[in-house]
Every structure is written in C-alpha cells, then in structure tokens.
C-alpha cells in the first residue's frame, strides 16, 4: 500500500541522509520526496511517498521517530489531507498542434510558462490523478521532458502535524 509520510525535521545537514537511509536499508524505493523549510526556519518538512508492506513501514516509522533530528512523523490518510504536486511538461508543439495543446492545458487549468518555435512548457498543479491524466493526454504530441516536484500534503481542518513528539 502507498503511504504519505509527513515528517518534521531539524533543518540541518545530514538529516535527509539519515531519513533516506532507513528506507534504503530495507530495500524500499522512495516514490517521491519533497523537502522544504516550514514557517519556522529551523524546521523542515519532508513529504515522503513510499510503497511497502504495512508491518515494515510501521517499523520504519518507529525508527524515524527515534532519530534525534526527527521531530514528528505522521502517516497522512488521503481522505483527511490535501495533496498536491506540481509538474512541468515540455511538449512538442508544432504551430499547427499548438491550439489543441493549449485547449487541453486550459481544461486542466494548467499554464503555459515557456514558448519556443517547436515546444511549449506546461505547468500543472494537482493531485496524482489529475497530473497523470494530463500527462497521458499530452503523450500523443510527444513529451520531450518532464519534471515533478513530488507530492506535498497537509492535513485538513484544525488538525496539524505538531512540533511535539
């Protein structure tokens, strides 16, 4: 099963290596990883998407909690959190195809962020399903390059991933 872990950590060198080491040691591949500083500049938030056996993941979560530089770990449930990912897609866009591509972008509320004689870069934000749908529609035109930020997520409502362990 896929899990989205939200991990508050000290904003220090070496922390990412310690966190990722706990996964790699058990042969887990991290599907996506997004890290950035939080409202407190001393603290960063990692959003880690990983697939694996629930029992082993529970063990990894406990081990994560044990790291001195890890402040808090939560396993975010999809229905209780808002999830987003930003993707940029460089798509082949000969002049005659351009309007069709722009229409698709429009439907997905995506933005064109770069235009060249033969390509367009489209920026799209959304959850995984939306991003995947967009990608598969653009495939027919030829995708030259694609980059994803990895998923970020926050719990809905008043609840938050508090600082205290």
């Amino acid at each position, binding site marked *: 099963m896929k899990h989205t872990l939200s991990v508050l*950590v*000290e904003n220090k060198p070496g922390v990412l*290596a310690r966190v990722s*080491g706990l996964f790699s040691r058990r042969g887990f591949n991290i599907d996506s990883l997004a890290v950035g500083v939080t409202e407190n500049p001393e603290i960063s938030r990692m959003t880690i998407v990983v697939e694996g056996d629930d029992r082993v993941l529970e*063990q990894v979560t406990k*081990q994560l909690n*044990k*790291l001195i*530089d890890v402040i*808090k770990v939560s396993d975010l449930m999809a229905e209780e959190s808002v999830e987003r990912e930003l993707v940029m897609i460089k798509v082949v866009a000969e002049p005659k195809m351009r309007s069709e591509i722009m229409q698709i972008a429009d439907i997905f509320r995506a933005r064109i962020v770069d235009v060249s004689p033969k390509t367009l870069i489209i920026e799209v934000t959304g959850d995984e399903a939306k991003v995947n749908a967009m990608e598969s529609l653009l495939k027919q035109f030829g995708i030259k390059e694609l980059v994803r930020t990895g998923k970020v997520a926050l719990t809905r409502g008043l609840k938050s991933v508090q600082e205290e362990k």
Partner: protein
Amino acid sequence: MARKVTGAEAFVECLRKENVEVIFGLPGGAILPIYDELYDSNIRHILVRHEQCAAHMADGFARATGRTGVCMATSGPGATNLVTGIANAYMDSVPIVAFTGQVPTSMIGNDAFQEANITGITLPITKINYLVKDASDLPRIIKEAFYVASTGRPGPVLVDIPKDVQTTKIEFEYPKTLELRGYKPTIGGHPLQIKRATKAIMDAERPIIYAGGGVIISGAHEELRALAELILAPVTTTLLGKGAFSETHPLSLGMVGMHGTKYANYAMTETDLIIAVGARFDDRVTGKLDAFAPNAKVVHIDIDPAEISKNVGADIPIVGDAKNILRELIKGLRKRPRAEWLNKIEKWKKESPLRYDRSGKELKPQFVVEQIYELCPDAIITTEVGQNQMWAAQYFKCQKPRTFISSGGLGTMGYGFPAAIGAKVGCPDKTVIDIAGDGSFQMTCQELATAVINDIPVKVAILNNKFLGMVRQWQELFYGKRYAATYLDTSPDFAKLAEAYGALGIEVTKPGEVKLAIEEAVRSDKPAVIDFKIAPEENVFPMVPAGAAINEIIDYEG
C-alpha cells in the same frame, strides 16, 4: 564571564565538565591540537595499538561502570578503524562518545590526505553524529553528545572535529541546558498499560520473566528480583541480560535461545505469559518465530518504542524505563502460588541439566570455565565471540549486573580482550578475565602492549582448539564435516607471545593443571595469558539449529 580559548582548550574543558577521567585513543595529524592540549591535562589517556580497540575499551569501560566511555582517533584511517567498535556499541546499546579529528574545513570534500567522510560512514551506527564546522558550537555539541549517548536507549555518538576548529579561538561557555526538540525518551510507563499487565500477571498460570540487557542498563536488577520472588515466576535471560538476575537463584533458568538451557527453552515454549523486560526478541532467542511461545501473551517493557512488536507481537506494550515500570508494577501484584508450573520446571531442570563428557582425560572447555567460576565467582568476565562465548555464558554463573560483558548483537570477534582492558580501567579493584578463543584473540592481541605499558593487569583465558570453533561446529553438523577455512594451523605460542610483550604466559594441557594456572594468573600483578589446549572438536550443546523452533534441540548424548 566567557573567556577566549582555542577549540582544543574548550574540548578539554568540556570533557572535564562531563567528568571524563579516561580516554582511549591514538593520535594523528588531524587531531594534534587536541592531543597537545591533553598533554598538560589530568585526563588519563590510554594509548592503544589499533583504534578499533579504543572503541571496544570505551565500550567495556561503559558496560562495567555504567558511565559513558570515550575514545578518540585521528581523521581518515583512524576514524574508519573505529567503525567496528561503534557498530558493536550501537547494537548492544552502549553509551560511548567517539571523537575524531578531521581535515581542515577548507579541505573537506576534496579527498585531502587522510580524509574520510566519517559522519557519513557512521550514520546508521550512531544515535547521532556531528561534524563541527564552527568552533563556537563545540561546547554545545559535546554536551549534547554525552546527553544523547547516555539517556533513553543508550548508544554511541560521534563528534568529528576539523583541525582548524581545534585551533580557532572562541568565547568559552558551557551550556547549562539543552534543547532537543526531537529527543524526549519516555521514562515512566503508562499507568493503564501497567494496570493491564498486573491483571495479566495475576491471571497467568505459567508466567516467565524474560530479562535482557535493558534491566542492567536501567539498574532494575533489584526490582526484577522482587518481581520474580513475588509472583514466583522463573527468570530466563538473554546473553546481555546475564547478571540481571542471579543465576544461583532457585528461580533462575539461565540463558534462553540457540545455546540456552533446555529448561529455559521448554519453559519459554510452554509459558502462557512472557514478561519481557529490556529484551528485544532477537532471532538467536526466538528461533523459528512461528513456533515461538505459541500459547503466550506478551507483556513487553522497553524504553525503545521501536522494539515493541518488532519481532514478536506485544499484547501489552509498556514503553519506559524498566526500573520505574517494575517498581510501579510490583505495587499492584500479590503473591500467588504456582506450584504446578514450578514443579514442572524443577523436573525439566533435573532431567536436562547442562552437561558434557567428564569421563575422558582431554581438557574440556566447559571444565575450564567451571574452574574460573569456582575460583573467581566475583570476577568481571568478558568474552570473545563463538564457542568460547557460549561456554562462558553457560558455565559461568553470573550473580551481579555488569559482570558479564560480551558482544551480543554484532558478534564481534576480538571484542573481549580490549573490552576487558576497558572494564579493568573502570573497575581497578575487580579481577577481570577475558574468556577467549584462539581465533578471536588473534584479532586484537596486539593490545597486550597497551595492557602491559599502562599496567592494566587483565587475564586472558584462551580456550585454544586450533579452530574457528563455532564455524567448525556448523560445518560438522550442517556441512558434512567439510572444514573449509576453519583450521588455524599456524597460531603462535600464546604463552611466549604474552612473555614477549612483558606479560605472564602460561600453557595448560591437562585438567589437573587448570586450577593452579588460574590461581597463578590471578595472583600475578601483571596481565596474563593462559593458553588452555582444549579438546579440538568439542561442541557447544545444547543447540537449536538456525531456523528451528527453540524446543527442537540437539544435545550431547552421553
């Protein structure tokens, strides 16, 4: 008022604040400023012959005294040589702080001479490690290092100090408090869980207490004895739990698991309630997991939440310090007779004691360990790894905590001798004996120089069978006696080797010589090595083959 000092001066000052009296280490270019500062200080430095042993000595010191051990090495190879010792301390939850020199900050990452990324290398084997890039951080980092190493589930911490940081002038002030947002070990057990455990214990017909190294770390041995005597439950220990409960106590079952006593393994299989205290259900204890204690509920007391339900599911987990939890637990319990269960255990004890062939003229390793126990029951015993370790665990009856020191988790050959030196430095009034094998001893025997020069009179009892004995035993039992690479045919004369270093060397070939040799070695004020030429193909029994259930036991058929 803060005053200006160099990083190296601050380092020595910090160690004084942490009451460090001894450092085990070996200098090199990148740590010279600190060594220069230590030269004038009253902190004792013990020069080792290999940095791995500095880490093991700090580890042995910590296990024998309960205080944090300190070791030190230079950058590059000095630091990487510490790695086995740090991994060993990590696996067995031993508080040590390792300091390493590092190339100057301007050269880090450039593959400079004697540069190694030691914080990267030790990432998975330290509780935390630090690369000090700003000298003014040094006091705080050292305070954190000692705090983290010694609290919660203890373990090693490494502090890597670049050479220029050692010479930079800083305003020195030792912090009074620490702020570690992500580190707050749970100490007190949850009252509701303790209440549930109380009920489970009162309901149980066949309870067993399974005690590990955590009991010793927590200093909970008296509470453990009180619990056992109150609920009249037998107590079995892990290898690292030896000494948590006196093995001469009528309720003691000795060690459990692969080379545990038969009665401990039978009791573990038939129990209806395991009270696990500071133990982690290691694979050497459980054998085949599916068949382990099939009818038992599990109360699991441990300070590390990550150990709960890791291998064996816990019905009642209690996270916290063992001493606190046991104290609380006892309050809710009453005496309850369990005659049927204890009678059954007595019967197992009578029917299947530890035994070996005592009839022949050969020198038996079990006999040697029995004699060491008879003559020095109060000694601190360290062991190497393999057959020597298991015979020591089976035949030396530990009565007090911190008297049996052995590499459990990592299983590091060569650990016992330097650990003995560390233990003796920490407890100079105790007799310290390393029960060794001829294979293991040769991994760290160069430390005879350290023991002799620093006047640390430890004793080494080599159970010399001219084999890497435990591996040979597996080859005999499971690989058709094909002794690939286990025969040690060119070992030195160990007695002469000891003498060459200025220690006492004794060779023993007959059972009749054992007692005198031990007495002579212990009486001597020098380090001593006794080379016991034992029966070469003696096996460690009982034995649960790897992957079998712990009641499927191979034993000596006499």
